[in-house]
């Protein structure tokens, strides 16, 4: 926490920097006056990668391998979204049945591990100990000490998801899974059998996790109201309207449940979504074009998916979904903290789906490569990543080199909503009060509900170069950055 006085208006800026127990780099700032009135509350994304530039001129085959290194928490999501775009570039519309199932299995493993990490390792301390509880204890180590059974189950659910990934991609993080129009290697009988050993336990632990979240969420009205908004939801659904993670049509429903679009072909996403840039964040602000900039922001991710779908195709997760929906009495559950509960319902769905796929004889098939068709110059791959709808869009030149790349990562779609939730919580808890560490953690709790992946979100962030010298250990200047016009001058060394 740092404070800097803004002389002119006797305002001060309070920064929560870095936002912790999230993946990646971000900070929250509050602009407050002397009476502790809040004038502004913002979540800023503070890193820049320049991916769109440096991917240019690279062969399209490399793309799925680069993009996963945007994010080590959900590398498989980027790998698969890019792979779907690459399939189109090589003229493949349908994978072989085995390849499709291997990709689905991989994606279920990925979603399971990412969701488990987020709940158990990062967010559960807030929910188990309280938002303003002792800062030193409010972390995964505290959970291991006080609730060892919950913590270990969480660690094991994540481990299982990672093992699924490793069986298909060769290693847990940044492996080699896809090739254009197919998959790199089949799943062997031994690998399949090894995964079958623990799956019944994983399903049971996932049920426990759903029950825990339901209890936490429903037992306290404060949880229901915390940072809650009324927004449209966007997600993919399958042709029958069921929850779908790997491939489907886009569905957007308004806050009151009315359909805006359904079974929308995602390759037309530029007609649906546009993005706005604001000077104070490196992350863009997408909105639904037909609703306009002011009204058109929406939410994605587990809360959107579980609300938006008509059903879930696996029985335990479906009955969990029905209990979830009954909270809203048929209407959307808009509670921001219900993201956690919806996330665990998806973990259960992943566990059941993994079991189903492991018992499917086709998963062991060796026909992995679809025949390549005519080359196309443009590919658009969209999947439901753990954090929501993820768009990858590439154009190539005649030599197959990337000419243009556009990504809308899941967290970006929640940008406006996260800022609104931060503002709501700031007004509810901090307005007029002395600022304490415990109160500031409330702001982070609001952000954490969305499970933002600020690593992913950094792919397209940046600001004008300013003048700063970077001095090496030997005292030599090894870099200099130049400041443009006004603003504070920050010197290193």
């Amino acid at each position, binding site marked *: 926490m740092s404070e800097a006085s803004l002389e002119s208006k006797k305002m001060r*800026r309070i920064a929560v920097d*870095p936002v*912790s*127990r999230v993946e*990646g780099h971000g*900070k929250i700032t509050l602009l407050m006056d002397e009476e502790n009135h809040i004038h502004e509350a913002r979540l800023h994304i503070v890193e*820049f*990668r*320049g*991916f*769109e530039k*440096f991917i*240019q001129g690279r062969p399209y085959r490399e793309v799925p391998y*680069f993009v996963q*290194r*945007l994010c*080590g*928490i959900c*590398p498989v999501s980027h790998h698969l979204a890019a792979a779907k775009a690459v399939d189109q570039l090589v003229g493949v519309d349908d994978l072989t049945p085995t390849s499709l199932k291997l990709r689905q299995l991989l994606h279920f493993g990925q979603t399971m591990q990412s969701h488990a990490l987020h709940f158990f*390792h*990062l967010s559960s301390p807030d929910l188990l100990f309280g938002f303003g509880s002792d800062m*030193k204890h409010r972390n*995964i*180590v505290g959970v*291991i000490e006080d609730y060892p059974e919950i913590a*270990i189950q969480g*660690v*094991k659910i994540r*481990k299982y998801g990672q093992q699924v990934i490793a069986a298909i991609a060769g290693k*847990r*993080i940044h492996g080699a899974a896809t090739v254009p129009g197919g998959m790199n290697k089949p799943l062997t009988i031994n690998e399949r059998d090894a995964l079958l050993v623990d799956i019944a336990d994983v399903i049971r632990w996932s049920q426990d996790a759903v029950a825990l979240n339901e209890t936490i969420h429903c037992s306290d009205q404060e949880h229901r109201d915390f940072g809650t908004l009324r927004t449209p939801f966007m997600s993919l659904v399958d042709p029958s309207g069921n929850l779908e993670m790997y491939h489907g049509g886009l569905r957007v429903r308004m806050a009151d449940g009315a359909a805006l679009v359904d079974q929308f072909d995602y390759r037309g996403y*530029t007609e649906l*979504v546009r*993005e*706005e*840039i604001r*000077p*104070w964040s490196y992350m*863009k602000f997408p909105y639904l074009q037909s609703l306009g*900039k002011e009204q058109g922001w929406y939410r994605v991710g587990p809360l959107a998916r579980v609300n938006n779908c008509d059903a879930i195709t696996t029985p335990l997760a479906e009955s969990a979904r029905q209990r979830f929906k009954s909270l809203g009495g048929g209407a959307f559950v808009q509670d921001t903290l219900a993201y956690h509960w919806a996330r665990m319902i998806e973990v259960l769905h992943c566990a059941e789906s993994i079991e189903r796929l492991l018992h499917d004889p086709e998963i062991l098939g060796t026909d992995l490569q679809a025949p390549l068709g005519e080359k196309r110059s443009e590919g658009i791959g969209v999947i439901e990543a753990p954090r929501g709808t993820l768009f990858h*869009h590439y154009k190539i030149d005649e030599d197959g080199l990337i000419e243009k790349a556009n990504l809308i990562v899941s967290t970006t779609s929640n940008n406006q909503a996260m800022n609104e939730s931060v503002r709501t919580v700031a007004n509810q808890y901090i307005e007029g009060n002395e600022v304490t*560490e415990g109160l500031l953690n409330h702001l982070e709790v609001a952000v954490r509900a969305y499970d933002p992946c600020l*690593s992913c979100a950094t792919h*397209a*962030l*940046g*600001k004008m*170069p*300013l003048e700063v010298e*970077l001095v*090496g*250990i030997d005292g030599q200047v*090894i*870099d*200099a*950055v130049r*400041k443009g016009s006004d*603003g*504070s001058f920050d010197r*290193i060394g």
Partner: protein
Amino acid sequence: MRNPKVRVATTSLAGCFGCHMSFLDMDERIVALLEQVEFNRSPLTDIKHCDPCDIGLVEGGLCNVDNVHVLREFRQNCKILIAVGACAINGGVPAMRNHYSLQSCLEEAFLNEIGVDNPMIPNDEALPLLLDKVHPLHEVVHVDYYLPGCPPPADAFVKILTDLLEGREPSIPAEILHYD
């Protein structure tokens, strides 16, 4: 009286968090580790600044001024500083932007992008200044050990920490030494 625990701080600079994820891939072994180790500043805790620590694990290279501040904070407070993963050691994927000017990267992301309403480059003072090039850690501070890999496997984390906890010079056997 028991010996106090060894204090470990971790951070992610210009990295993808994959190295931290790989650290957590030690799975249940973390419980045994926690008998000897306590976490200080880390994305896993809410401690925002380092206290004096025994070991610092740093993922990612340097792409902006904040990264440099955090790295210096780690160097000042950690007796042993370990550069973790390809990005910390040589810049990794983020350093691919070094082939281009920073300005052209910003223009591509913010001025030439598809479906953007109001092309402009964000420039609020809340955003940290970008460095012209992405740098590895050892160009700016002294680094004690390098743990290669993208990411280093969980076993390599366990090995280097166990060696240090037991007062041995760390050595990573070939089977768990990866560069990919």
